[in-house]
């Protein structure tokens, strides 16, 4: 497996050397492999966004940071990172600016210096992936609905064919279907094309459902790291950090406290299996 993100002993301070110095990240080590889906959870102010900005080459701290094989202490490498790393911050549709959807999605590929034919191919593929049809190609992005605008903005990132995707709450404000479609898209990219995804989210159901590994940030440090099952079995620790667990984990913890024989569960399919077993065990159903 190759490491796409490799961060060793990273510390980031805002306004260092002044009375207002704030340590946003302290001695963080963090590795993401090719094809991995990683979630980062943590309360507000824990350093999640700072870490994402470092990975995007937008911020520099102390420590060793290598992204897609590029040493981030080199300014040129940082400046060129936009070609390799796709970043989707909250409400990306606020950055749409071109006169048509097509031109907006084409903006990145054109800047990559690709041939016109390749630009065309990428834009069409990306718009198809986010499920926007030809009928919107020549519309102003501002004529689209909220969900469509979000998808157009995402298409603009996909058309760059990034080597890694960095996502900061990409589904905030979307309805359940819009959320599911967008997350399916990221999952598929990760599974089928081995594009690693780093997802910052407060949505524990999504994290449990999608992530291979979860990193918990607290006050600028990695407080826990493990599979969703390992992390969400520590409900009390998470609660003390101001975090929560998905419904299935809450249920298994509550049932275990009552002395009922259920295993740790994190996803709904697991809950279906365990609760069915319990019901049959208790003779509540035939």
């Amino acid at each position: 497996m190759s490491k796409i993100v490799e961060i060793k002993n990273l510390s980031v301070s805002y306004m260092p050397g002044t009375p207002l110095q704030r340590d946003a990240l302290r001695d963080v080590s963090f590795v993401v492999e090719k094809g991995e889906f990683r979630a980062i959870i943590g309360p507000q102010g824990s350093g999640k966004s700072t870490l994402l900005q470092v990975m995007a080459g937008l911020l520099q701290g102390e420590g060793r940071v290598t992204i897609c094989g590029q040493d981030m202490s080199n300014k040129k490498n940082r400046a060129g990172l936009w070609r390799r790393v796709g970043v989707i911050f909250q409400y990306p549709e606020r950055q749409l600016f071109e006169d048509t959807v097509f031109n907006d999605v084409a903006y990145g590929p054109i800047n990559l210096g690709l041939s016109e034919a390749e630009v065309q191919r990428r834009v069409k593929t990306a718009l198809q992936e986010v499920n926007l049809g030809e009928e919107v190609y020549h519309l102003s992005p501002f004529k689209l609905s909220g969900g469509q605008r979000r998808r157009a903005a995402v298409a603009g990132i996909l058309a760059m064919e990034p080597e890694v995707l960095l996502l900061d709450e990409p589904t905030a404000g979307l309805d359940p279907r819009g959320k599911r479609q967008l997350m399916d898209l990221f999952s598929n990219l990760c599974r089928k094309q081995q594009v690693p995804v780093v997802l910052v989210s407060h949505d524990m159901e999504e994290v449990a459902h999608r992530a291979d590994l979860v990193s918990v940030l607290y006050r600028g440090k990695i407080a826990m790291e493990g599979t969703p099952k390992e992390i969400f079995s520590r409900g009390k620790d998470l609660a003390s950090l101001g975090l929560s667990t998905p419904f299935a984990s809450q249920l298994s913890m509550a049932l275990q406290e009552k002395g009922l024989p259920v295993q740790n569960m994190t996803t709904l399919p697991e809950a279906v299996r365990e609760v069915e077993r319990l019901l049959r065990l208790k003779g509540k159903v035939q």
Partner: protein
Amino acid sequence: MIENRKVINIQGVSFSYPGTNNRIVLDNINLDVYAGEMLVLLGPNGSGKSTLARLMNGLLVPTGGQVLVDGLDTADETSLWQIRKQVGMVFQNPDNQLVAALVEEELAFGMENLGFPPEEMKKRIKELSARMQLEEFLDFPPHRLSGGQKQRVAIASVLAIEPQVLVLDEPTSMLDPAGRREVLSELARLKQSGKTVVLVTHDMTEAVAADRIVVLEQGKTAFVGSPRECFSRVDWLREIGLEIPPPAELARRLRERGLAVPETLYHVTDWVEYLCQK
């Protein structure tokens, strides 16, 4: 306590935004909000929820029909101050709503505009900040607070002018789990104290606490009823892009597998109680 008194009365309301070729955002909405209830507005993106919320205190005025707040027409500009005193709004992003340099000034802002006497302002700020656990932050600039704290300041500053109704447009969507819990328990307390709460949300778990749920679809009221009735229409909700809360989804999947579990298990505690019964 839900009273049999209409605080907001929405009659045949339609709405289009200017410059959109009269594209209809809301189409002939008839809806009453009763004093003391918690009303949740659900609907897919673009269904008109936020627009309907903004019509409730005259931030937007209907293009057809009427919105009455305590009998006052929101289209009548001379009533607007009175209406805004009755119906307070809280938005998604507290950063867009907080204007003052310090939390204390933020709480005073609305009262100052309405010309409250200084002693009364001081008294209310004291009461409110104690009740909402903001006392230690009164001399903080809002930007030093967490998201949940900021949103509580936004709610407190609206409550300072003692509106009857609080309308909140996705107030938790930008908050972390702790912030979300803070805001939701504040809403539960407000309802307990007799306030009317209108909550716009995408989070089905938040909708469980509603007295009534209104589902908007393509600018029309597609459903009005209890959470129980709402969540029993799973197929329809899916069709329009919504889902049911995870506890209810678990029950649905088990029933699909032929197990006779009750339909009304909406919380972890409901499930524990059910599974612990002999």
